[in-house]
């Protein structure tokens, strides 16, 4: 059975954090703190979302001399829509995403 993309608990945690203030650019470290995801989990998700144009990225030059620019992220319009759908699907299913998968339906 094909897995519905972007439904893992980790991805949903990230969606929640990003939807907190969808217009604001976010730092990877802050997202890691807010979602309690390790960098090794968080960044692969960011990579995947960016590849699918659900997330936009930019480099923010550091105001502190000698520090490299920081990579910043925010959801695209498409990404924000999908994130809301996924989070709503989790709520309506009542519990875990694992239960929505066998049903095979998206929200």
């Amino acid at each position, binding site marked *: 059975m094909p897995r519905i993309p972007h439904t893992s608990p980790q991805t949903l945690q990230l969606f929640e954090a990003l939807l907190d203030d969808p217009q*604001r*650019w976010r*730092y*990877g*470290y*802050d997202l*890691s*703190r*807010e979602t309690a995801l*390790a*960098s*090794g*989990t*968080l*960044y*692969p998700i*960011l*990579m995947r979302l960016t590849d699918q144009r659900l997330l936009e*990225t930019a480099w923010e030059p*550091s105001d*502190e001399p000698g*520090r*490299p*620019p*920081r*990579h910043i992220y925010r959801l695209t319009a498409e990404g924000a829509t999908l994130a809301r759908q996924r989070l709503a699907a989790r709520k309506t299913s009542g519990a875990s995403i694992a239960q929505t998968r066998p049903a095979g339906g998206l929200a």
Partner: protein
Amino acid sequence: MTSPLISTPHRATNSPTRRIAHAVLVAAVRGRRDRGGDWGEAVLAEFAETTGNLEAIRWTWGGLRAAWHERRRRIHQLPRHVRITRRAVSVLIIAVVAGLAVNQWLLTVHTMPSGSMENTLLIGDRYLVDKVSFRITGLHRDDIVELTTPTSLRVKRVIGLPGDTISCAGGRVLVDGTPLDEPYLASDYPDETYTDCTTVTVPPNQLYLLGDHRIVSQDSRQSGPVNENAIVGRMLLKLP
């Protein structure tokens, strides 16, 4: 940017642990390049945000996973033939290294240097040598072994084990007084295989070794039993 989590520029000086963690992450992201992949650099740029040794190590550990992930994706985007070539090259290198290791420590092929084992092994015959497993299974009578001497590598047959009394009578070898059945001797040439020796009891941890070509072989008849530490291999089979 109002998040309280965003750092202030002035942090405590970096401890050695943090510096090591940072160096590891830099090495993983950049290797020998000036700049790594975008995502690796992104993780790296956030390193300064972490506080304390533990968090720095956790960030680095996750960063290694992220950099690995990014690298895998990059490889995956390469053209098919490039990926196949790379895979083939890495398999080849691993195979060669593994082959050399096996050849060095487990199994190897040697060429018979002398006529002392005729007619079992002729000069120039190639045979497979087991370098390890005889140390586990132990050596038995009739096994053909290699031993090192200060000057050369020799090939002989195990005739006497520790405790055996070896003697000779009528051109034949006796073990504890019983004539040894030696079907491997070249029976068509009785004077080549006529064996004469002085009686000896093999001491512990030593072996009594003879070459099959009794008339030419230099072996335990002249130099006495050999310490088992001198044995470096056991012949498994003769190669065609």
